[in-house]
């Protein structure tokens, strides 16, 4: 199986685009059907859920630093995603180039 490399290992752009489209669809569907939902990042709600079950629970530790606003938080999240995506792109490009040279 490992010796026959070329054809069945080729990156099928069309097929993978369809797969990617499915992911986008999965993310959009809730937005279309749940018009009144708030789509909060649910950390705050989790705190409420716990205090609901254990009414006298006091969190015993606070984060040293919190992003001062939603904007700063999304900045950091996009930095995280951007950095990661850059590395993935670099790695795939590197592999692809090396692959070509060896042929």
């Amino acid at each position, binding site marked *: 199986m490992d010796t026959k490399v070329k054809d069945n290992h080729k990156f099928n752009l069309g097929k993978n685009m369809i797969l990617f489209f499915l*992911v986008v669809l999965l*993310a959009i569907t809730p937005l279309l059907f*749940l018009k009144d939902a708030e789509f909060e*990042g649910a950390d705050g709600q989790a705190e409420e859920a*716990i205090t609901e079950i254990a009414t006298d629970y006091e969190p015993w530790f606070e984060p040293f630093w919190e992003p001062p606003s939603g904007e700063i938080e999304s900045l*950091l999240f996009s930095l995280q995603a951007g950095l*990661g995506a850059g*590395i993935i792109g670099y790695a795939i490009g590197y592999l692809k180039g090396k692959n070509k040279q*060896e042929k």
Partner: protein
Amino acid sequence: MKKNRRWALGAFLIVFAMPTVSHAMHIMEGFLPKGWCVFWAALTLPFVVLGFRSIKKIIEEKPKLKVLLAMVGAFAFVLSALKIPSVTGSCSHPTGVGLGAILFGPTAMAVVGLIVLLFQAILLAHGGLTTLGANAFSMAVVGPLVAYGVYKLAKKAKAPKGVQVFLAASLGNLMTYVVTSFQLAIAFPAEVGGFTASLVKFMGIFALTQVPLAISEGILTVIVYNAIKAYGNQELKDLNALRGEA
């Protein structure tokens, strides 16, 4: 269409019936009693040690695999930054550790997952330092272990490669959240019904929110795996040789 509406209505009802329940991925800072923090951290530690050893071995024996290692780490970074809306009307995010677990084995991902969690805890106040052990146990230990196990099983069952990867990544993702619910339920048993009631509550919510995200993670992992297979076949062979699999 009708079916979709009914489905949406069901999701609506759940949203309104439990408006305050969380679908957060990680347990928040300070929201786990001290004893449990220590307990989960202690359970996680040996996996991290094994992970460091495994990564060291990989880099020493096949330095060329560093690119691939950086890539699976970056994949976990990207996916855990994506907060995606779900059917329950809230957002959660994938974990991205399944890919690395399939390629590098489960313990290597304990280290990678821990780094991602540290980053989010310190810079984003997402998750927490005190809850790091518990969160690492669910995302960096159990998730990769499940992904790896499922991958091996699917391989044995001779499922197509895409199916193997998809099942591994999505079930690893789902189990991460099941473990998180378990951790919360065991630390916060309900007054009526105790542990079981809490577990049912947390689990129902977590599982439902997470199902579409688990599917998304499965698909995204398949796409990246396809790219690696297409361009990094030599690296994949090196990996298999290193881990004693022909």
